């Protein structure tokens, strides 16, 4: 070729960018969720697969429609965030939930919670959790009847936390640690297998997409809170280990409390955020009206995020002021 190129593009420095993009991050998160999805299909059968497909497709479709309505020049529905929302939503509901309700959940998550606030990056609340809580409040019966694992005709059973709430500690004492760890319990699709969730979390951690600050603060606080009561009265309260392995605690701590958009950006805020989530979860589980409190507590703490970020900004300002 000629020594001198004739068409040059002027662009801003830096001319090197890291390979992380929203697409790459989101599809990695989606991949990290696959073990949990696979586990739910293993335990709850094909119906779980269909629920997942319906949730993902409807999420992407709703985002596509919103893109069109908002006349976006560039479509955002394929950037992977809607896929993650769909996958997470599926993991947050019982495999027996009617498809109509699943689609309604996607609508609440994508349209109401995310797009109406401005789309990815602008939503103050975690879309998946708003979807879940909306369904839980609207359809309490359907949302709390969990299919028992490995049962073909969808016999429903109460989740361990539900049994704990209604029947006390003695009723759950037959569940072994390994049963809880591998997920052989009734529950929403992805909350059951701790192993599958941890596998995904490890991937995200090593890619640098989540830090451990929030999950550790979250889980640690719940363990401490429930531990204190367990030590005080083991006959009435379940052990902290039981609390860690049941419900959506691990899924919530590693995949939803760490959502970039709805969690604080700096370390101090993240610690407070995580501890707040953990404390509220313990409080709701032991004394609240619902057996499970992860979704509520994360949503409540989401509301504090702007405040926590603001605090960091102010202290940063005073720290670097010229002497």
């Amino acid at each position, binding site marked *: *070729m*000629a*020594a*001198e*190129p004739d*068409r*040059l*593009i*002027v*662009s*801003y*420095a*830096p*001319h*090197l*960018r*890291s390979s*992380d*993009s*929203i697409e*790459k*991050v989101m599809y990695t998160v989606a991949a990290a969720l696959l073990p949990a999805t696979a586990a739910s299909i293993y335990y709850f059968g094909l119906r779980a697969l269909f629920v997942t497909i319906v949730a993902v497709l409807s999420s992407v479709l709703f985002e596509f429609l919103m893109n069109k309505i908002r006349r976006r020049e*560039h479509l955002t529905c394929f*950037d992977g965030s809607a896929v993650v929302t769909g996958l997470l939503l599926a993991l947050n509901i019982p495999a027996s939930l009617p498809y109509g309700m699943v689609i309604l959940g996607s609508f609440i998550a994508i349209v109401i919670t995310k797009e109406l606030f*401005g*789309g*990815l*990056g*602008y939503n103050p609340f975690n879309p998946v959790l708003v979807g879940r809580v909306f369904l839980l409040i609207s359809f309490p019966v359907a949302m709390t009847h969990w299919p028992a694992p490995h049962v073909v005709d969808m016999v429903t059973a109460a989740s361990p936390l539900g049994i704990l709430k209604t029947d006390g500690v003695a009723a759950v004492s037959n569940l072994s640690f390994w049963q809880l760890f591998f997920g052989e319990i009734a529950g929403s699709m992805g909350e059951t297998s701790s192993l599958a969730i941890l596998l995904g979390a490890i991937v995200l951690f090593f890619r640098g997409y989540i830090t451990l600050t929030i999950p550790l603060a979250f889980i640690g606080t719940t363990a401490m809170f429930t531990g204190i009561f367990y030590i005080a009265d083991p006959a009435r309260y379940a052990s902290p280990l039981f609390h860690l392995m049941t419900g959506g605690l691990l899924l919530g701590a590693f995949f939803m409390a760490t959502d*970039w*958009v709805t*969690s604080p*950006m*700096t370390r101090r805020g993240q610690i407070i955020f995580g501890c707040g989530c953990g404390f509220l979860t313990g409080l709701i589980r032991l004394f609240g009206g619902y057996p499970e409190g992860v979704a509520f507590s994360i949503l409540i703490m989401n509301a504090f995020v702007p405040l926590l970020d603001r605090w*960091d*900004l102010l202290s*940063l*300002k005073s*720290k*670097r*002021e*010229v*002497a």
Partner: protein
Amino acid sequence: MRTFNQGGVHPPEYKLTADLAIERMPTPARLVILLSQHLGKPAKPIVGKGDKVKKGQLIGAADGFISSNIHAATSGTVHSLEERWPAPTGQYAPAIVIESDGTETWADGLNIDEEKPLELSREEKLKRISDAGIVGMGGAGFPTHVKLNPPKDKTIDTFILNGAECEPFLTPDYRLMLERPAEILKGLEIAASLFSKDTKIYIGIEENKPEAVKAMEKAAQGGPFTVVSLKTKYPQGCEKQLINTITGRTMKEGQLPFDVGALVHNVATMFALYEAVAKKRPLVERVLTLSGMEVKNRKNLIVTVGSLVKDVIEHTGGTTTEINQVIIGGPMMGKAQYTCDVPVTKTTSGILLINNTEIDSLRERPCVRCGKCISACPQGRQPWLLADLGQQRRLGDMPGCGLMDCMECGSCTYVCPARRNIVQWIKYGKAVNAARKR
């Protein structure tokens, strides 16, 4: 391993030219010498069209306190004086065009051999540095004689040679350290001799350049130097980060290095300073790296100041495939050029020829609040906020959020998954705020 206290990123290094010895590129037939190759006011031309000039002759005189002399880089005739010539900064600058006569005859009294440059008087040393038009050759081009003459009330106790060269691709300083360690150290000693005797002299080199560490350690034996190897992390070679790494001191917003008692000098500058004081050679040539993935013959070259970028590309045989970007400087802080007619200046440390295939897909997305830019910022700032304020045109609020503390290192933009042009918004904010003040 020592490094600075916060932030930083690890871009790929791409030091493709590290093993190539420095070669000399012949002076092209026509040179375009910019009168503004430094920070501060452009120099005033003191020659006219048709004048005969000799190599090293003063053709542009420093104008004011912060300015620098400009010299003819070869012998020949002044072809013309240009008002506007494209400069690597992206703006225009006045320039003097010289037709070379091919003899490279030095002007009288220059290119001598001083026996004992260290024993010259302080005034004489400073005069030779200022006469030779030495400026910081790492990028900013701050006049060196001004830097070496800080206000009287500041005490300097630390002298640092910046051998970090943290920009990907660039290797001129590395090659100089391997090939000319003795001269660099002499230059450093001359510069340090302007200050009190107990000024500590450090040589900071990133640990990914063990050869350079070895070469400098060998040359430094018995001298008043301490060689420090630094952790490889961008932007280790920025002044503030280097000072923090070596002395532990932090510069507050608005402070200059001498406020914390330290001065940082670039390797190439010290080499040029040595030549200025010991040989009375003005700064008319420099070492630069020509690199890029698509370049046929990557090289470390001594190039005469005023050679055009297209001359350099021609000399090395061009590229293997079509390229779409020419960048002067490194890929993190360098400037993309719109023409190959820009000349090499005193601060041109590299020319990169790049085929950027990503460029069309770099669409800015909204901030997803990942916090990566905050943990990457070596200045402990919140870059996303500055970008937000810029995008919302709330430019007046930017200085209150640390606008002036940012040194435009690009770490935040490098890591941002939403591909926001954070540095661009910051530069925009700085420009508008500066204009408003006037």
